[in-house]
């Protein structure tokens, strides 16, 4: 079976399944072989259920009524899958078997998706580097000496290495968008609350979003239509194209202290957008001075509140890293937490005010390319910061505001790593955001090559995702 299929989009595979060129069972076998071949390098999976996948795929009759009919997928090991352990990437829950599916797993399966297994992650989603003492660190498919990013590290690695067609993750500060960006993929964080988090281990209820990692924006759109809770009205027409759109470029913060090649790539994207008929406009954003503090002040008490149920009896099983964060959560005062949530409300209102003037916001996805594995700090523009802070610097604000945001590749760095941009839309305009990103994807000449993986030759691939 041709490895090329492992890098096909949902759209392309659906065509092939419909036309009988390939069967779902063949896809499962292809991914099973690749998972085995790349398991040490990718560290993408914590557990697999290939027997059930083969059974589901083998019994499948193709139906055009199912948006994901026969498509193999994976999910971060925070999502409950009935009969499978939901470990959170931690020894704390290594024996906890889910009794029911998470709501989104039910929806994926009802749409014909074939579940393959659970993806590796930063323990309990606490961290953007994706490092995991228990299961190993996921390597970036473009450069195995670098991180895939996190916390949905395994989800990004699985899609990036061609081990599944799409993967689900969670995004609390950028944990879907950032690893997708670092691995040359598309990462969607929807409007807060639009995709159910029922049956997903929480990290921070105020900031958690279920998100998707796919090869293309069209695929993200397909998954969103399957997973979303309710339809949403859209001020931008569903068939909106670039012509006539006003895209805001933040005047401060989002283009500061960043790799110059990343800024150049996003600048080229802006040129393209203008040439395609969009209007670009500089916009003032709320002050970002305290945003990291506000986010942390909400995150850690909420995380502690959830994990309190396990601390008494299994506290010693947590990693030192996560325990330190929970201890910090214990020491934050109630009024400080409430105040932080009030600041989040001001961020939402102030960002909504920006969206009265523009239809979308455009930023780089990350200020730096994927850091080296083991790097504690990243230095950009002469300023050093912790690696995890750098990875999520441009994404975490929109977890607080809850606006839908998508990251997508827009170029290649001279080191051979992908560069990505981020588009942000109004609340509940996820569909329009996806339509616009898909439009950009169909038109722009910013395709990036797939990763060069050992033993895999894909000479026919001319761009990511095979369309």
């Amino acid at each position, binding site marked *: 079976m041709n490895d090329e299929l492992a890098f096909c989009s949902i759209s392309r595979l659906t065509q092939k399944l419909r036309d009988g060129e390939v069967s779902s069972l063949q896809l499962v076998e292809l991914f099973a072989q690749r998972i085995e071949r790349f398991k040490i390098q990718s560290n993408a999976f914590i557990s697999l259920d290939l027997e059930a996948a083969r059974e589901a795929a083998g019994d499948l009759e193709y139906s055009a009524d199912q948006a994901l009919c026969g498509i193999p997928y994976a999910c971060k090991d925070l999502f409950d899958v009935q009969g499978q352990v939901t470990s959170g990437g931690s020894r704390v829950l290594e024996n906890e078997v889910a009794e029911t599916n998470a709501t989104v797993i039910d929806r994926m399966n009802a749409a014909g998706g074939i579940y393959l297994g659970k993806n590796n992650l930063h323990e309990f989603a606490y961290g953007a580097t994706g490092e995991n003492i228990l299961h190993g660190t996921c390597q970036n498919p473009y450069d195995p000496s670098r991180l895939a990013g996190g916390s949905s590290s395994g989800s990004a690695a699985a899609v990036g290495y061609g081990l599944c067609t799409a993967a689900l993750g969670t995004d609390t500060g950028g944990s879907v968008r950032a690893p997708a960006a670092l691995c040359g993929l598309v990462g969607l964080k929807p409007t*807060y609350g639009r995709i159910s988090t029922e049956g997903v281990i929480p990290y921070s209820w105020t900031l958690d979003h279920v998100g998707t990692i796919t090869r293309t924006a069209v695929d993200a759109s397909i998954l969103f239509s399957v997973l979303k809770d*309710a339809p949403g*009205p859209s001020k931008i027409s569903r068939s909106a194209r670039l012509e006539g759109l006003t895209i805001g470029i933040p005047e401060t913060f989002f283009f500061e202290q960043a790799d110059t090649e990343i800024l150049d790539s996003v600048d080229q994207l802006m040129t393209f957008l203008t040439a395609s008929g969009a209007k670009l406009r500089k916009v003032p954003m709320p002050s970002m001075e*305290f945003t990291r503090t506000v986010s942390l002040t909400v995150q850690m008490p909420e995380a502690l509140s959830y994990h309190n149920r396990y601390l008494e009896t299994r506290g010693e099983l947590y990693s030192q*890293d996560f325990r330190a964060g929970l201890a910090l959560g214990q020491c*934050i005062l109630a009024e400080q937490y409430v*105040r932080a949530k009030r*600041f989040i*409300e001001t961020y939402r209102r102030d960002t909504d005010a920006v969206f009265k003037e523009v239809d979308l916001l455009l930023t780089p996805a990350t200020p730096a390319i994927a850091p080296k594995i083991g790097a504690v700090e990243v230095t950009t523009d002469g300023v050093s910061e912790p690696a995890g802070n750098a990875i999520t610097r441009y994404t975490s604000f929109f977890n607080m505001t809850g606006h839908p945001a998508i990251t997508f590749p827009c170029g290649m760095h001279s080191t051979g790593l992908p560069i990505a941009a981020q588009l942000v839309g109004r609340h509940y305009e996820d569909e329009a955001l996806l339509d616009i990103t898909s439009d950009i994807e169909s038109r722009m000449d910013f395709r990036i090559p797939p990763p060069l993986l050992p033993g895999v030759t894909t000479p026919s691939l001319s761009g990511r995702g095979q369309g």
Partner: protein
Amino acid sequence: MKKLQKDTLLGMRDQLAGYAWEDEEISELVDPKLGIITGFQDLLDQLDELRQIDLGSTPPASHISPPPESD
């Protein structure tokens, strides 16, 4: 605001219905050496600045309601 003292956090741990963190973990919050948590003092300094910003009657953020259907 005075500098955070370990005894303060030990008192919170022992007297305010929280989990029994190890002494070393409390020490790490006050005087980070392991590089796991950086700057709890910095966080508190920032929280003190935030405390002095008037938020009027702004409520805490909650769910995001869908806007009314557009025509």
